[in-house]
């Protein structure tokens, strides 16, 4: 028996490990893993009208939903198998009573879990949350939780996390295993608080009574204010394929072009970030490719002249951003605009724009020029008009996190996307309307059918036109 035991133990792997290595993996996978990659590229960046994909990614851009399920599956599995599998194991180990109980690490892990579950909920709607990713504990048929529950629960959890992190002993964190902030717990608490703000802002129109007090709370605590506090991941030219920038990998393969709507919007605003995001064509012009064109229209396009994304967005050494100072300042501007918190919305708005331009290394002269004589960089007009300005800046500032861009359009209705009409555009299954969610992958439908059916009975049909709980504004 001893011989068998010895023979059947794998010398190239271990059965017990310090959670720090799992934590570092979960953190890296949150931005560099398949989940983020597949969320951003095929779906969000096209739905947000930032990029237009060619080849078979066109089907997504044309609002079809009948993929062999690979696309939905890649996204769903990418998040569950990458960050969630690993962070749930960290949570299991570090929670009260766990093998490696540690409240600081547990708190940090909660933040990572929230960033991934919120991405799932924003893409699909209801997902297994309380029971999600717990296969190791024997939960093979997890029940779904509603978007409402997920949001509220994450906001509650983050509140506890922030209080733990604010008074935590950094030694109990992850020194040497934190790819985001090198165990700077102040930055982690700002991250947690900013994420909580993002969540609250997302649901403020559907559940103001839940959201507004949280927003006030968030603003009373430190938030991400400077670009050095941004949640991001940097890539190097030398990275080997396993951890190569997913943006870079996806870019070449699918031949992305800049969206015509994106290019024209920035051009119209004389936004200096256009040159940052897009590469000019041989004639020095910036031209985009309209999203959703039909085959015949597409074949008329001279693709050689259309701008491709710049190295800043898709180069091998480009940085992947998740949550930035600019986004937080814009959310604060919105909160101020609607009187949820005191403050000068315009001032916050301009701070946000400045932070965003600085983030992309736009020169100070260009920043001043943009802010001083551009009608778009000053909040003007009705509250709704100002809201549109804030949302439009938000849509630009979140790049390359196009998931937030798509969510912003769904939540605020801004920027207003161009209408699609036949036969110039292929109208897909939504009759040309922007998809509001992704369909569940067939693996979930097939294997976890009972819980799936319960979830869609509550949420609405499993279609890409079913709005999410917080998607209430037209």
């Amino acid at each position: 028996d001893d011989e068998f035991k010895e023979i059947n133990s794998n010398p190239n792997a271990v059965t017990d490990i310090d959670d720090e290595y799992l934590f570092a993996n979960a953190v890296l996978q949150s931005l560099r893993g398949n989940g983020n990659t597949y969320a951003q590229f095929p779906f969000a960046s096209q739905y947000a009208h930032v990029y237009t994909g060619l080849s078979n990614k066109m089907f997504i851009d044309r609002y079809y939903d009948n993929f062999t399920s690979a696309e939905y599956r890649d996204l769903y599995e990418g998040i569950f198998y990458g960050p969630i599998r690993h962070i749930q194991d960290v949570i299991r180990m570090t929670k009260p009573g766990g093998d490696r109980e540690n409240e600081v690490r547990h708190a940090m892990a909660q933040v990572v879990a929230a960033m991934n579950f919120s991405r799932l909920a924003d893409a699909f709607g209801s997902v297994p949350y309380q029971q999600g990713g717990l296969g190791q504990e024997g939960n093979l048929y997890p029940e779904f939780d509603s978007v409402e529950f997920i949001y509220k629960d994450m906001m509650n959890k983050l509140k506890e996390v922030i209080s733990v992190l604010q008074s935590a002993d950094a030694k109990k964190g992850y020194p040497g295993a934190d790819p985001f902030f090198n165990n700077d717990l102040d930055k982690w608490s700002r991250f947690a608080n900013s994420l909580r703000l993002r969540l609250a802002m997302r649901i403020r129109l559907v559940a103001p009574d839940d959201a507004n007090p949280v927003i006030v709370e968030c603003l009373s605590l430190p938030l991400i204010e400077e670009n050095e506090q941004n949640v991001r991941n940097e890539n190097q030219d030398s990275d080997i394929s396993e951890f190569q920038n997913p943006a870079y990998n996806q870019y070449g393969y699918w031949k992305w072009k800049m969206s015509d709507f994106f290019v024209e919007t920035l051009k119209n605003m004389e936004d200096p970030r256009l040159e940052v995001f897009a590469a000019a064509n041989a004639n020095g012009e910036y031209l985009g490719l309209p999203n959703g064109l039909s085959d015949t229209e597409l074949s008329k396009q001279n693709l050689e002249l259309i701008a491709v994304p710049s190295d800043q967005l898709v180069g091998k050494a480009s940085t992947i951003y998740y949550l930035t100072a600019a986004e937080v300042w814009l959310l604060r501007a919105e909160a101020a605009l609607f009187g949820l918190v005191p403050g000068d919305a315009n001032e916050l708005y301009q701070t946000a724009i400045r932070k965003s331009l600085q983030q992309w290394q736009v020169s100070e002269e260009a920043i001043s020029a943009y802010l001083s004589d551009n009608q778009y960089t000053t909040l003007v007009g009705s509250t709704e008009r100002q809201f549109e300005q804030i949302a439009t800046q938000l849509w630009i500032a979140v790049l390359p996190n196009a998931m937030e861009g798509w969510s912003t359009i769904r939540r605020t209705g801004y920027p207003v996307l161009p209408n699609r009409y036949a036969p110039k555009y292929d109208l897909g299954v939504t009759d040309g309307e922007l998809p509001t969610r992704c369909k569940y992958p067939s693996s979930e439908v097939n294997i976890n059918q009972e819980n799936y059916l319960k979830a869609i009975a509550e949420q609405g049909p499993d279609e890409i036109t079913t709005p999410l709980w917080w998607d209430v504004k037209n």
Partner: protein
Amino acid sequence: QSEGLSVNLSNQPIKVVFNSIQEQSDYRFFYSDDVIDLNERYSISFSNKSIQEALEILTSKTQLSFKIVEEKLIVVSNQAIQSSAFLVKGRIVSATDNEPLPGVNVVLQGTTTGKVCDFDGNYEIEVPNESAVLVFSFIGFKKQVVPVNARPVVNVALEEDVSSIEEVVVTALSIERDKNSLGYSITQVSGDDINGAKESNPINSLAGKVSGLQITKSPTGVDGSSRVVLRGVASMLGNNRPLFVIDGIPMNAGYGGAGRWGGKDSGDALSDLNPEDIESMSVLKGAGAAAAYGSRGANGVILITTKKGKNKKGIGVSFSSGYTAETPMVTPDFQYEYTQGAFGQYPTLAGNPAKPLADYPWIWSYGTKIEGQTETNWLGQEEQMTRQPNPYDAFFRTGSSFVNTISFDGGNENTTFRASITNQDSKGIMPNNDLSRQTINLRGFSKLGEKLEFDSKLTYIRSKVENRPYLAEDGSNIVQSISILPRNISLESMKNNTVDADGNMLDWNIDPTFANPYWVLENIYNADEKNRLQGMFSVKWDITDNFNALVRSGVDYSNANSKEHENPGRPSDGNPGKGSVAQTMGNTMEWNTDFLATYSKEYNDFSFSLSAGGNYRYNKYNSISQGGRVMKVPGLYHISNYESFGTSEWFSEKSVYSLYSLGQFSYKNYLYLDVTARNDWSSTLPLSNNSYFYHSENVSLLFSEAFNLNWDWLDTGKIRASFAKVGNDTGAYEIAQYYSIQQTQTDFPLAGIGGQLPHFDLQPEETESWEVGTNLSFLKNRLVFDFTYYYSVSDNQIMNVDLTPSTGYGTKKMNAGKLQNTGYEVQLNAKPLESKNGLNWDVILTWSKNKSEVEELYGDMEFLPLAEEFHMMIQARPGEAYGMIYTTDYKRDAFGNKLIDKDGFAQAGEWKAMGNINPDWIGGINNRISYKDLSLNFLIDVQMGGDVYSWGKAYMGLFGTSVETLEGREEWNAGTGGFVEDGVSESNGQPNTVAIDPTMRWYNIYNRQIGTEWIQDATNVRLRELVLAYKLPSKWIAKLPVENVNFSLVGRNLFFLYRAMDHFDPETGFSSGNTGNGIEHLSLPSTTSYGVNLKINF
């Protein structure tokens, strides 16, 4: 009659006395003229005596002595010349053709002393006295009892025994048995049958020759693997290949093949078997036959016995040489009329090389009619459009295989040896795909005294394969590239323009999936080199006449080194690729040690044999891989020449202890019972469940003997039944959750958790099977009929069950799933023509039908995905057969008509089962016609039913390169019509009349993912094998220093008598896995081979 013998003779020759006694009794006198004088006269008289009394009287009155031996024979000898031991020799021939019979047993009657005659039929034996009696016996011949009668030379002609079909076959644990005594189905194929039309993988030579055995060779280059399934797939996701055992030692043989997204077929190691060394192959089909092998026998066993040396004078040398050439058998039907383009227009090409700006639709071949017009070609030059020939014909070369073997054998009565050396050089039809293999095989057999036998074997195989072709949806799959190449682009232009000034690949399109085929040939290289050693040593000790013990140990070790590199220049990541290298070194070992003790005894009509044995098996695999990207200096493929690199390491080991026992009981040579019991202890299962027990019971009744059926038309009749239960374990390290440390260049060590959840309480898998069968032989064995019905159910299958992704894990090892197989097997051997020294015709007909049904999956799981391809999935679903092909059908009305929308397009309907990968039945008709020294063998192989999902057809439809895409083009371009979809209009129910652009017709099906047209009937009938052999007559070669010269013309896979599938051979998979026969994705074409073989014995 033997009572009451009376003789009353006076002065008569002794011969008359003998005659008198012979007339009164069944006894016969046997004597030799030179020993006694038959004319010597005696006076003898007695009455009412028994034969013994009579002989006593004769003894006293004459100088003769008498001895009653068997068969009521009385041997007469001269009392005067009773003497001591002397040597008898002689030659034994077959009475049929006077050819010497090697291997005949010569035994001194009443003793266990015996000899085996040599290759030329000669024997020598010492006899104790002149009245000794010799018994000559040989399988398939009538036993002869011959008194020596003082003769120094006793030559014997043995007559063939047609009244019994006694056939000795090799069964489990290499035990030779009379086939009649077996309660299960077994088919033995001789080395000659395998060697006729040689395949480099000898397993392929079994196709069509064994009922119940389905062999599908993948056309994946030289040394490609084959799918081998006995009696249907039993394990849904596990390995279903039978176990291969060579000379008692199990052989490592995984299966090869590419995946859906590409790769290459690295072979299945079965081709390491050298056909020249094979004496016979026994196919143990069911678990009953294979139960002694425990879990590994669950899918049946193929036992391979290699040649031993022969006891003969001097050293026998034989030389064989074979050369075969091969050419594609089936190539797709292309259209030859329209250029690149879409909607009937030639594309606008820009840049250098000139490419359409969007990859589709402009890279399709739906352009203008080729009528000598001038267009800008892909090189940016003005070119007159011409019809291009079938690219398969132009691209592939004639493959070849040249195999030479020289073997030596010899020995004496105590020791024999055989040594052979084989060299094989093969060239595949893919222009750079080569194989070189050398095999050395040594076999020694020795007897030490009367009691000890040693057997040993050592085989060394070295092989190197270069440039195994890339398959399936792989950017390096050349076949895929040439299949969709626009029909106006010449291969010549691709060949002459592979790289630009910067050394980057030149291609006519921007999709890296369809590369310039010649660039791939020149710039992507792979090679694998393997050194394999198989050794075996066994000792058998005959402790007493009834009791023997055997110990055997054998190892199969191989070391493989594979290397692959790609030069910079292929577009990837939007930019030219920077080159890559990958290398793996791996060692695989399996070591088996067995012991087996056997006690046999006969009591009158009852005999039994009991064996007990054990086995220890140890498997180990380890490998190290390294890979590098971004080449620094051109042309150096060393890891140091790459900017980034990584390594990985793999190790696994496993051990299994087994104890087993076998019992064989027989009553009066017509009732036989076999039982097997075996228990295994596996290291891979949890300690609490690691022991599992199997057993089998097999009964055979020769009812023709039991009931003394003296029917003229029936020679022998047998019924048999078998039941077996076997278990199965799993792979190493599957019962614990492991963390791995990832090799990264990040600042932090990263640990990962595998996506497979372990099962901490895994149970062994269980297969129960039973079979019944009969074997009937008619018309003096000119017609032998064998029938088997079997049923097997595999339960508790250990499989990776897919989990819902929200568990965070992809799969979990579980005991789940139940699959049953039932089937029929028929084999008919007939001799329609038989004449001595004249024309003979033998026919062997095999037929088998297997039906599988998935009974259960895990929990509520609706289906288990077995394989996927674009727009389809092969599934296992409860209540359905294993391997149903699911795809989207057309939208149809209640009558099955396609519903066509107002614009004239077919629409997507239901996702449903539309085919099955398994044939309805398979069969073979094997003919052997011989006339004197000339013989003709041919094998017709039939597959009825079964489906293949043909993605090649789909691609060629989408790209407009196949002939069927021509429909409606002429009319559409002329504005007079177009493609009119067959169906009814959805709006008014009338037959559809809306003509559409053919470009859009095929795109529409692709876009809506309708797979109906890609499901192709795999039914086919082919001339699988043809051998015309000629043995040079002895008188021609009498003056040459050779014994035999055989010459043959051979052909394999010659042509189809019937083929339902369009464009491809149904045997065109890219993998030999469980569903490998169900998907076609532009693999290499299957090949026809033809050649010559020469064999000379010195």
